[in-house]
């Protein structure tokens, strides 16, 4: 692969990077004119756009593109350097569809203009801001930009009407607003509007030191807070070179898998409540309370955990945790039969979900989807197998994959993932080694060396990535979170075209979105 890149793009400066230390394989420096050629090359060779964001070093801005492959792991970081006042770059939204929204986000946070972009309107922020938020100094938003960044004008016509699937609705994704243009009962176009829960996590990361930022990842995705905590803590450990003892790795794995089960259970209840079946909600929450009790005894909180520390855990687990987990495992294996009878064999459920919302493989690559969404379309892509972290390489499990890509397949995959998690917890509990639960000599105020690092983790919704730029001081220079729900959500406008609105709500539920992680 490296030779192929060198052969086709000889004029770029390419450097090989040590993967275990940095998290990516290649770093490329491209100019503004060459970036389209580079992106076209990656698209032809089957790569997907993992992330696209901007970093503000005060003398210049850097647009960072990350490309990765679904078939094997090969992460390439491409960097385009831009000058700080009126930075412009060509858009790649016609090559990779997901870049449309990444570029809108970069524009409103950094002030980078993208030529030929179809609609550079505000995505996350409200209209009343004076300066670009994530720039290091105060850079004012020019007047002509203010007029262009409105909420979007909608063309009305005689036959169609607009409906708000508004921020306040009975589904439990969070505050997502979708403006739907409808013709009778069919949807002609759906446009998600985000930013109703933008809580400035990335800006807070630049204002707090590493230990002070620990509560934040849990609030980003509250349903799988431990997975987000793990991503953050492992990223900082990677850049600082802290080695975590074995016992802590196993306990991290067990607690993350428990959190995954609880997140999938809540998704189950909420998804069926979207479809109209309100009973499984109660069953799912009953099982979930069991998990929450186990985790509360160890971490101290029920929902937004901050259990991991740099180098290990906050405190050790005791026998009560192990006994409670074993009892839960036994109980859960029997409860899965209830869900099977209640839901999977239900004729109404099968009729509503079979053949609806089919996501093809090529679209999955163009959008960079991950998680059960991509595994439902036949691609066996799971970061726990591809880039094992914590103790996953010592546990034995299979990833469920389905072929059709409709809603029923995504549901079946999530149910099978609950079973997979139960197996992982069982095998990790047996192999739990004794020993210290914290690395020694971790400084109280961490000052990691200069550099950047990328780390990914498999959250229940998909691939979660953290990119950390450290400038040697106590606070990070830039922390970027690549959240799985962002790329999963952006398939919705394409999936929902021309379907009945009841099917569109089912599709939205099956994508398993948690909006606070999108809005960050």
């Amino acid at each position, binding site marked *: 692969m490296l030779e192929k890149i060198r052969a086709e793009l000889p004029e770029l400066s390419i450097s090989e990077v040590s993967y275990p230390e940095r998290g990516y394989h290649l770093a490329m420096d491209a100019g503004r004119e060459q970036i389209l050629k580079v992106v076209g090359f990656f698209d032809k060779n089957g790569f997907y756009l993992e992330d696209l964001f901007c970093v503000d070093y005060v003398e210049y801005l850097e647009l960072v593109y990350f490309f990765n492959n679904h078939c094997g792991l090969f992460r390439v970081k491409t960097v385009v350097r831009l000058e700080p006042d009126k930075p412009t770059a060509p858009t790649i939204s016609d090559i990779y569809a997901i870049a449309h929204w990444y570029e809108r986000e970069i524009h409103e946070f950094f002030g980078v203009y993208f030529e030929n972009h179809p609609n550079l309107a505000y995505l996350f922020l409200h209209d009343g801001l004076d300066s670009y938020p994530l720039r290091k100094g105060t850079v004012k938003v020019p007047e002509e930009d203010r007029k262009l960044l409105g909420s979007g004008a*909608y063309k*009305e016509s*005689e*036959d*169609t*009407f*607009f*409906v*708000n*699937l*508004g*921020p*306040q*609705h009975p589904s439990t994704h969070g505050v997502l*607003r979708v403006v739907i243009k409808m*013709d*009778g*009962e*069919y949807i*002609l176009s759906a446009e998600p509007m985000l930013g109703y829960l933008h809580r400035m996590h990335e800006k807070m990361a630049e204002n707090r030191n590493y230990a002070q930022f620990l509560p934040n990842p849990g609030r980003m995705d509250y349903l799988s807070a431990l997975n987000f905590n793990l991503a953050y803590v492992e990223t900082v450990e990677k850049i600082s070179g802290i080695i975590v003892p074995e016992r802590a790795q196993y306990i991290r794995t067990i607690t993350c898998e428990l959190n995954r089960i609880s997140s999938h259970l809540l998704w189950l209840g909420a998804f069926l409540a979207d479809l109209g079946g309100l009973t499984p909600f109660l069953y799912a929450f009953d099982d979930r309370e069991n998990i929450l009790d186990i985790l509360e005894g160890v971490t101290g909180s029920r929902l937004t955990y901050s259990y991991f520390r740099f180098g290990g855990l906050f405190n050790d687990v005791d026998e009560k945790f192990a006994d409670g987990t074993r009892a839960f495992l036994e109980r859960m294996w029997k409860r899965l039969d209830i869900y099977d009878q209640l839901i999977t064999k239900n004729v109404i459920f099968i009729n509503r979900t079979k*053949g*609806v919302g089919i996501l093809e493989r090529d679209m999955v690559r163009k959008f960079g989807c991950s998680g059960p969404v991509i595994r439902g379309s036949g691609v066996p892509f799971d970061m726990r197998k591809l880039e094992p972290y914590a103790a996953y390489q010592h546990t034995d499990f299979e990833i469920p994959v389905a072929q059709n890509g409709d809603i029923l397949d995504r549901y079946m995959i999530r149910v099978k993932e609950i079973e997979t998690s139960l197996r992982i917890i069982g095998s990790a509990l047996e192999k739990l080694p004794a020993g210290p639960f914290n690395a020694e000599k971790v400084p109280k105020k961490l000052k990691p060396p200069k550099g950047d690092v990328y780390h990914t983790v498999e959250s229940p919704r998909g691939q979660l990535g953290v990119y950390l730029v450290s400038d040697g001081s106590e606070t990070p220079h830039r922390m970027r979170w690549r959240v799985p729900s962002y790329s999963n959500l952006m398939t919705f406008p394409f999936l929902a*075209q*021309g*379907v*009945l609105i009841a*099917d569109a709500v089912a599709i939205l539920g099956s994508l398993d979105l948690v909006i606070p992680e999108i809005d960050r």
Partner: protein
Amino acid sequence: MKTLIEFYPVFIFLLVSFGFTVAPMVIAFLIAPRTSGAKTLNTYECGADPFGGAWIRYASVYYIYALIFIAFDVDVLYLFPLAVSYTRGGNAYEFYSLLVFIALLALAVIYAWGKGVFTWKRKIL
């Protein structure tokens, strides 16, 4: 005049049903506080402002649904007195004429079924 007096149960039924619907509204008008804000009387659109008009041209299949409903409704209207008087004993002739009546009304529904009014395509674009 005499026959009109015989309908007194119907009049009492009419008065009670009228009172049943109107009395809660009157009670609420009398004993509940009233609030009005800037956006109280707006259409509920999940908190956002609605845009675009609502007086648009709808698809004609909704009209056909309304027609089918009317067919059923008239059906029921004619069956009410039949149901009341059926207990006085009858002969086979009444039963078969009733069957013919219902079959003729059901023809409208079967015609609509055959024309595909009840099947909606899952995806049109």
